[in-house]
């Protein structure tokens, strides 16, 4: 399996990921002969405590996307039994390293705001379930194999 090693910083293990429009949307835009947006490079925190992947809203704006779903989410500050309802967007997610890449062609991701957190989003277990993650605290390195 190809792997990417990221340092474990005071903010956690942050990995560079490319977010693009989903492949079905890409196909439709090509059929309509509409210019397709370039993928966006993002810094995502690897978060095993996140059920799903979340991205900051500027990414969807850059890709010209509108929601294609909703998601109910619960966080530590959410009142029990009253989840937040958030917009969901269909995107593609590419993990790339050294010329090799793994592409998730159509993933529903949630919109949240990470403006003051120094990251662009969270890489959640929806993606991690198809990867091998090794967290080496002694060496300060996290390895994501895909």
């Amino acid at each position, binding site marked *: 399996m190809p792997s990417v090693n990221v340092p474990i910083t005071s903010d956690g293990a942050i990995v560079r990921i490319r977010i693009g429009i*989903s*492949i*079905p*949307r890409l*196909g*439709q*835009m090509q059929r*309509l002969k*509409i210019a397709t947006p370039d993928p966006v490079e993002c810094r995502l925190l690897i*978060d095993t*405590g*996140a*059920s*799903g992947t*979340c991205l900051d*809203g500027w990414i969807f704006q850059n890709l010209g996307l*509108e*929601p*294609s*779903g*909703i*998601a*109910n*989410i*619960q*966080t*530590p*500050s959410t009142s029990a039994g009253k*989840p*937040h*309802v*958030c*917009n969901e967007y*269909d995107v593609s997610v590419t993990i790339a390293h050294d010329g090799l890449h793994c592409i998730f*062609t*159509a*993933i*529903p991701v*949630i*919109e*949240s*705001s*990470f*403006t*003051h957190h120094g990251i662009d989003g*969270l890489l959640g277990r929806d993606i991690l379930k198809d990867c091998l993650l090794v967290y080496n605290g002694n060496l300060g390195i996290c390895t994501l194999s895909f």
Partner: protein
Amino acid sequence: MTTLAKELETYEKLLPSLLREQGRYAVITGDTLIGVYVSYEDALKIGYEHCGLTPFLVRKVSQEKTVLHFSRDMDVLCRA
């Protein structure tokens, strides 16, 4: 009206009859069910073919409300 509000209303109205397709993905535009598909990607493909780039809803059919959990607090952007 918020994006997809009409579609979500349609989903809730159709849910009793959709439950036989639990676990599959419903594609809805306005008050019309386009179809139900095995995978999320198949549902998107059909949605884009039918609706072009006009927004449509893809929703996993489920009797229970699925809730995603996050152990980290976020500045959540709730739908209006």
